[in-house]
């Protein structure tokens, strides 16, 4: 507090004449706005605050006290005082002059209590003085406030406080000064220079500072004034529809309204005489030609205002110019702003593409995770498991149940992953033993039987956990996002899923290519009879393979549950896409699944980019694309070849 006064006093030395003159004004300002100060309201207090701030250091002290709820009225004479707590009593200072009024008991003063909205305005006004505060934290806060809401007055304050011992803050001040210069400096050359100094900067705040300069207003004028800063002259018919252009003229009172069918109808209804309107029987008026005849007759009798005819409309439209006019009067500034904005566009486009790619990558990882278990059961074994989605759901619910017992989110996640694997592995083995083993020779019936299992499991989940979504909370360190700049960012949870997908890819490759189990799985897939004669038990291998695929689905379920709602329908949301991923990629090849997931993920995001509002349409078009894609590569992107193809 004292330091602010000190700084402001120094400022007063820098600008001695003006400051002294303003100090003298403070009493006048107080007198002028007395009511507003005593009962401030957020809507009207802004000019008051500005007026007080403009008076100099004493005004700043007043504002500070006001914002801290230390401004009061002395009951004895109604004088506005600043009250500093001093033990049980208050030490009073005259708000207008700064004269010491000595201590007074608390009940002698009525303290003003401005609401939070008013105090927000006061603190924004105070930001200027806080810019030179010795505490770097306060300076940073003041800069933050300034970047959110700055104005011309604060540009001056900022310029006086440019020196900063902290290099980061100094750089920040520099940048903010240029941003404010763009918007509020009175010298066009300075503004243009500031714009050009940013180069191709893509930050939001730079673009936000340019946008107000480029806002336009649409007007219709007969002659274009010489000083108008015209952005664009609109050609009627191509740039602006005829109807809209004429409606502008009508709204501005420059032309008579056209006769709309509704208006015609209402007017005719007012002039019904003996069942006739203008000599036309009412019964015939269910026809547009008859209505026009009746209206013309009424016009002839002088009963109604003549409506604008088509020729008049054309003449009026020819007479007027339709313009988009910049609010900013200086053409050089707007031209520079436009050039600066155009300069950012390419880079923004590239960054948006990068951001979209990151989104697509994470979507692809999700599809890959959901499909990798299927790549084993369907891709390697050729078993259609419609209950695969329900295994994903079981994994997600396992994660939820574990969180009920272990409150630490990180530990519960570490426990949930292997547990989900164990649960769904067991479920998968049970399903294989009880159902699928008997149906290896009847693939279509496997599809139906596992579908039966799927609806039974879904309903069971509903009976146990209810129909409402259950939360599966991710640990704190997965919150937030990795932000590269204002455009490109990715949440940590998506990075985690991407990493998990990579881990699974590695795990799959390791198991299939480097372990005994993988060798046996490949052998059984290619030729069960031959594998059996080599001492491999196809039964056991099929069981283990199916269990492995199901177990991976369980882990994927935990991962998906972290960002999606855990409901009994969780699995069925992914099942069709998962099958698509495997089929598009090419059955029996993990790289194919990877390619399929990437294709579907990028495709879906790409379509969403063309039509951002409509994810449903994106999914529709994606499925259509896949149906057509299958026409040209029925065996997927990476088709199995040779003997493996026979097996699969």
């Amino acid at each position, binding site marked *: 507090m004292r330091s602010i006064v000190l700084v402001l006093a120094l400022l007063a030395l820098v600008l001695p004449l003006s400051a002294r003159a303003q100090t003298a004004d403070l009493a006048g300002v107080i007198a002028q706005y007395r009511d507003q100060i005593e009962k401030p309201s957020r809507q009207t207090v802004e000019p008051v605050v500005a007026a007080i701030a403009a008076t100099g250091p004493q005004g700043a002290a007043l504002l500070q006290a006001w914002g801290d709820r230390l401004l009061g009225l002395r009951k004895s004479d109604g004088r506005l005082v600043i009250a500093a707590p001093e033990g049980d009593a208050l030490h009073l200072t005259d708000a207008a002059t700064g004269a010491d009024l000595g201590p007074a008991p608390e009940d002698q003063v009525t303290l003003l209590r401005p609401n939070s909205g008013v105090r927000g305005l006061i603190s924004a006004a105070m930001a200027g003085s806080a810019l030179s505060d010795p505490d770097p934290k306060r300076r940073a806060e003041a800069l933050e406030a300034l970047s959110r809401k700055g104005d011309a007055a604060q540009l001056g304050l900022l310029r006086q406080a440019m020196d900063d011992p902290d290099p980061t803050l100094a750089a920040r001040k520099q940048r903010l000064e240029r941003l404010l210069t763009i918007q509020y400096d009175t010298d066009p050359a300075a503004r243009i220079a500031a714009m050009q100094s940013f180069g191709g900067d893509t930050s939001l705040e730079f673009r936000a500072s340019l946008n107000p300069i480029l806002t336009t207003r649409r007007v219709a004028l007969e002659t274009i004034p010489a000083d108008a800063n015209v952005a664009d002259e609109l050609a009627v018919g191509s740039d602006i529809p005829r109807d809209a252009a004429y409606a502008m003229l009508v709204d501005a009172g420059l032309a008579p309204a056209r006769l709309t069918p509704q208006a015609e109808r209402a007017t005719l*209804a007012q002039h019904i005489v003996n069942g006739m309107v203008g000599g036309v029987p009412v019964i015939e008026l269910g026809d547009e030609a008859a*209505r026009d005849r009746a209206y013309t007759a009424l016009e002839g009798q002088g009963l109604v205002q003549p409506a604008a005819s088509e020729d008049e409309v054309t003449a009026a439209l020819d007479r007027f110019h339709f313009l988009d006019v910049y609010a900013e009067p200086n053409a050089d500034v707007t031209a520079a702003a436009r050039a600066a904005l155009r300069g950012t566009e390419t880079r923004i486009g590239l960054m948006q593409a990068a951001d979209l790619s990151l989104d697509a990558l994470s979507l692809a990882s999700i599809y890959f995770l959901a499909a990798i278990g299927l790549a084993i059961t369907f891709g390697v074994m050729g078993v259609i498991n419609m209950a695969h989605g329900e295994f994903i759901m079981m994994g997600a619910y396992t994660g939820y149940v574990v969180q009920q017992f272990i409150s630490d989110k990180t530990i519960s996640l570490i426990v949930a992953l292997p547990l989900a694997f164990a649960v769904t592995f067991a479920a998968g083995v049970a399903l294989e033993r009880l159902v699928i083993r008997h149906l290896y020779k009847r693939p*279509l019936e496997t599809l139906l039987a596992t579908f039966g299992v799927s*609806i039974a499991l879904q309903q069971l989940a*509903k009976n146990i956990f209810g129909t409402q979504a259950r939360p599966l909370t991710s640990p704190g360190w997965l919150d937030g996002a990795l932000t590269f700049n204002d455009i490109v960012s990715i949440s940590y949870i998506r990075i985690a899923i991407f990493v998990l997908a990579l881990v699974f890819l590695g795990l799959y490759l390791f198991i299939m290519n480097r372990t005994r189990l993988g060798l046996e799985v490949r052998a059984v897939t290619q030729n069960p009879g031959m594998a059996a004669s080599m001492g491999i038990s196809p039964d056991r291998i099929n069981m283990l393979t199916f269990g492995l695929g199901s177990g991976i689905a369980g882990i994927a379920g935990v991962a998906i549950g972290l960002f999606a709602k855990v409901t009994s329908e969780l699995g069925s949301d992914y099942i069709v896409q998962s099958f698509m991923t495997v089929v598009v990629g090419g059955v029996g090849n993990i790289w194919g699944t990877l390619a399929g997931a990437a294709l579907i993920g990028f495709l879906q995001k790409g379509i969403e980019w063309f039509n951002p509002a409509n994810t449903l*349409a994106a999914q529709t078009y994606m499925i259509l694309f896949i149906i057509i894609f299958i026409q040209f590569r029925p065996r997927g992107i990476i088709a199995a070849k040779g003997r493996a193809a026979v097996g699969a």
Partner: protein
Amino acid sequence: MRKPLVLRHPSILVFLAVLAVFTVGVTILSTGYGTGVISTSMVKTLGKTLCLALAAVAMDLVWGYAGILSLGQMAFFALGGYMIGMWLMVARTETIVTGSLANLPIPPTAAEINQAVATQIFGVVGSDQFPAIWFLSGSLIGQLALVVLVPGLLALVFGWLAFRSRVNGVYLSILTQAMTLALALYLFQNDSGLRGNNGLSGLQNIPGLDAVPQESLSIWFFWASAVALGLGYLLVSWVASGKFGSVTRAIRDDEARVRFLGYSVESYKLVVFTLAAVITGIAGALYYPQAGIINPAELAPIASIYLAVWVAIGGRGRLYGAVIGAIVVSMLSSWFTGGRAPDVNLGFYTIKWVDWWQVLLGLSFVLVTLFAPKGISGIFDALAHLRPPRRGGTPLGPDMGALQEREAVE
């Protein structure tokens, strides 16, 4: 000279007789034309069930006879419903709108009526224009033609694309499932032109028949459904019984061999697939006026899978099996989920069938697939002493999924 179809296959005659008896029985017991034992809502449920049975017959044709497990049949069903629903909605809204506009001092023009109808129908999706696909919606004949044409064309195009690139077996199943999912997602959008997820509603009110009470109307629709089922059954039996049917079944059992014999496998499949789609579309057009409302949820993949479930439980390759499966399972389903089934108290837990019916259905489905692949119609086979020959475990043939043995006895 060959004997007539119904004499070669006495089961057709039996089926038609049972259907006729059932129809007459329901009529006598109905509220509209009889003693009133069966309520109007029950008559509607029965009528809807007959439509589902017709869809199941078509499903049996594609799956049981041609071996194409199509998991998108309900898309055709719903499309049929949408096509008739468009006319029903426009015609009915038009009568209402004309009635309200007639009170105005100036009689409305055709354009004004059209505008008001469009606002009334599409107001819920924020539009006041008829989308282009409604161009025929004013004409009953036009929409009835679309009931046949739209599902037929969709099946023709989809089937042509799929069959010519030799997409087979489970791939084809998944592809058909994707088709119905894509269509459902598309229709869920508000700007799809079919009122988004609001769907079409008020279809139970037939324009021009306002004076007819729902009791009579429900019976009329019940009759229409029964006639459609009878005719559809006859048509499908005829298709499946002759030389065409033999080739179709041969394709199911060994597609490659039939192709080598010189038959155009793709054409046969395409004809069967398209015919089934058309029949399913007609079934849908009869179903939804009885249901009263249609929305894109009807196209969800699960609905088509249920159709497959009915046919499987009833028995594939037996048309009466499909009908029995559809009727038994859908009636049981509405009995259990309607809360009419008594709860089972186990002492420690009370089984509420509303919650457990799906579990029971799923498990019984697994059991039927495992132990009774012939489904309910297996009982009839057993009564007729039809048994598959004992082969002692020798392979069935090149296509592991084929059912030649069972077929051989028919």
